[in-house]
């Protein structure tokens, strides 16, 4: 690898898609925008894999933008955790773009494609930028890049259903309130420390000690990110946005947007705040944990009576986000590791499931479970991918969902939190109901009369099955993901000032 690239990997990760994205809007050749977007995502993915490899041994890469040393300038800081999330985001980008070609052609007007893919790649850029940066305000800027692009690509589902517009609008309002809360919180932190660099912030917060300003800074950042990551009960924007967005967008967002928000939460909780004052851990135990538990149950429960498959998956996401937050709020290395590995596992699973839903939308013209009866016979490969993803949601062995659930329960048991174990287990049992409901409809019921459905095209099946394959592969042999998650968790543990069991 040329020295030049190796040296600038962190910035290339963001700047390549950022420079490439605008050109998508210019290309008028048929499918040209798609090709550019796809190639860009491939390059991005390659870079993130290199970063992943570079940080796997615990190295922390720091890149000073503009040549100014932090905290004067903005810093990019890559450790195992970032690199892991970057790989998830860019990898999802590649596969959803591959999938998008057929799916988006069906769901978005052809003359809009240039702008659509520009927004898509910028969304990717924003998410990568949020993940890689070591500067707290830079997080906000790139969060907004990705959010604005997200609102637009969610709204472009309006060709199929006008409800995409109201969904995008509500998402915009709640997302902006969330971002503004984050900015307020950041302002409070800035006020008592005078810095915006995360590492520097952590240092100075530790010296600062307890104060009411710090407490409120913590609370506002928590609420702001809670809105962005759809923490129950701040999740109301999510179901409609994921239901009415174009399927490729749903797949992409479900695997990345909320995950990146969770990453930022982890970064702030552990690397910046570091639990230097008791208030921080108390809030986590007394507020976040109960909400996470409630979310994981209620989300799953609401999913059971949905007829719209995409909405069902959206509520399941809320439940799974609850599971991740449970892991986070255990405040133990094993809990963190469970949350991080679930981040990956859920991304892989949900992406494949949304791709399945998109294939139904295209080939069967509906995502209503009732109208999809008997679809297992007409679209065997697509439906089989759903079975794999569904088993992963439940947490059946040999799928990634099982691995997540194992670590989560293990972490809860290590803490001796039996009630939490019960909640985790019960929410997986509810998952059994909503997954089972669809699988039964797809295989055991006769198809409605007079419906012609064909198997989805290969460009949709391949990415769908890559995700399904990944959720099997890392479910059977999780050594890579669990090692990465464990190291990422270790990094966070080392950064915080909690006393760890």
């Amino acid at each position, binding site marked *: 690898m040329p020295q030049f690239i190796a040296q*600038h990997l962190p*910035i290339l990760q963001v*700047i390549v898609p*950022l*420079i490439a994205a*605008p*050109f998508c*809007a*210019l290309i008028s050749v048929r499918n040209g925008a798609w090709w550019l977007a796809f190639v860009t995502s491939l390059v991005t993915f390659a870079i993130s894999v290199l970063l992943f490899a570079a940080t796997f041994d615990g190295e922390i890469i720091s*890149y*000073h*933008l*503009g*040549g100014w040393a932090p905290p004067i300038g903005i810093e990019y800081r890559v450790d195992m955790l970032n690199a892991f999330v970057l790989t998830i985001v860019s990898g999802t980008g590649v596969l959803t773009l591959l999938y998008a070609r057929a799916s988006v052609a069906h769901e978005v007007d052809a003359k809009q494609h240039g702008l659509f893919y520009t927004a898509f790649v910028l969304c990717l850029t924003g998410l990568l930028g949020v993940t890689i940066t070591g500067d707290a305000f830079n997080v906000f800027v790139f969060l907004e890049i990705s959010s604005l692009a997200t609102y637009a690509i969610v709204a472009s589902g309006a060709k199929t259903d006008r409800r995409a517009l109201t969904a995008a609008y509500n998402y915009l309002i709640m997302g902006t309130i969330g971002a503004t809360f984050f900015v307020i919180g950041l302002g409070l932190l800035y006020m008592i420390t005078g810095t915006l660099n995360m590492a520097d912030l952590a240092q100075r917060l530790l010296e600062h000690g307890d104060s009411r300003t710090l407490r409120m800074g913590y609370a506002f950042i928590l609420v702001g990110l809670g809105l962005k990551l759809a923490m129950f009960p701040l999740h109301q924007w999510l179901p409609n946005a994921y239901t009415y967005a174009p399927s490729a967008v749903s797949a992409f967002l479900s695997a990345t947007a909320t995950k990146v928000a969770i990453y930022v939460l982890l970064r702030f909780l552990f690397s910046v705040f570091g639990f230097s004052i008791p208030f921080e851990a108390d809030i986590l135990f007394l507020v976040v944990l109960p909400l996470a538990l409630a979310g994981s149950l209620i989300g799953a429960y609401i999913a059971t009576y949905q007829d719209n498959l995409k909405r069902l998956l959206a509520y399941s996401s809320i439940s799974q986000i609850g599971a991740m937050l449970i892991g986070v709020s255990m405040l133990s290395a094993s809990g963190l590791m469970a949350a991080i590995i679930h981040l990956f596992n859920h991304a892989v699973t949900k992406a494949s499931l949304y791709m399945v839903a998109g294939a139904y939308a295209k080939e069967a013209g509906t995502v209503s479970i009732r109208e999809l009866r008997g679809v297992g016979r007409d679209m065997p490969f697509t439906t089989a991918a759903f079975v794999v993803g569904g088993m992963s949601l439940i947490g059946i062995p040999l799928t990634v969902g099982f691995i997540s659930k194992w670590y989560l329960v293990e972490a809860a048991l290590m803490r001796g939190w039996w009630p939490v174990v019960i909640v985790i287990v019960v929410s997986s049992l509810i998952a059994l109901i909503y997954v089972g409901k669809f699988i039964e409809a797809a295989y055991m019921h006769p198809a409605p009369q007079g419906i012609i459905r064909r198997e989805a095209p290969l460009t949709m099946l391949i990415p769908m099955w890559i995700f399904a394959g990944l959720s099997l592969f890392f479910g059977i042999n999780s050594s890579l993901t669990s090692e990465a998650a464990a190291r990422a968790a270790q990094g966070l543990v080392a950064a915080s000032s909690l006393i760890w069991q």
Partner: protein
Amino acid sequence: MHHHLILRVVAKLLLPFILLYALYVQWHGDYGPGGGFQAGVIFAVGFVLYALVYGVDELTRILPRPVLITGMIAGVILYAGTGLVGLFQGLTFLDYNGLAADSRHGQEWGILLVELGVGITVASSMTAIFVAFATREPDIDDEDW
């Protein structure tokens, strides 16, 4: 659109000054308040004024869609490109020190260039957003102004 003649004349007289002022704000940002963003907004306001007086169609004649989109892109690329120069000089991204013989002049050049990039993008983006609203056919007939 057929507005008053006086309005058109005044606008025509005013417009060069607005644009001139925008340019001043653009280049003077190093010394006083102002910079690319403000200049871009003023530029856009100038175009908006033009459109209000002469009609949006007239504005899209001067600044058709491809021009505006190219402008939006050009600004971003100018900015990022300035940053990339540092990359190729063995410095980091957005390090302007290598843009001129000594680092202080390099910084000045760099700041000038990126501000220009901001200005171009903001002016064309704002104008494009305005045009997008203005060219949409209103379908309101239930109320009056």
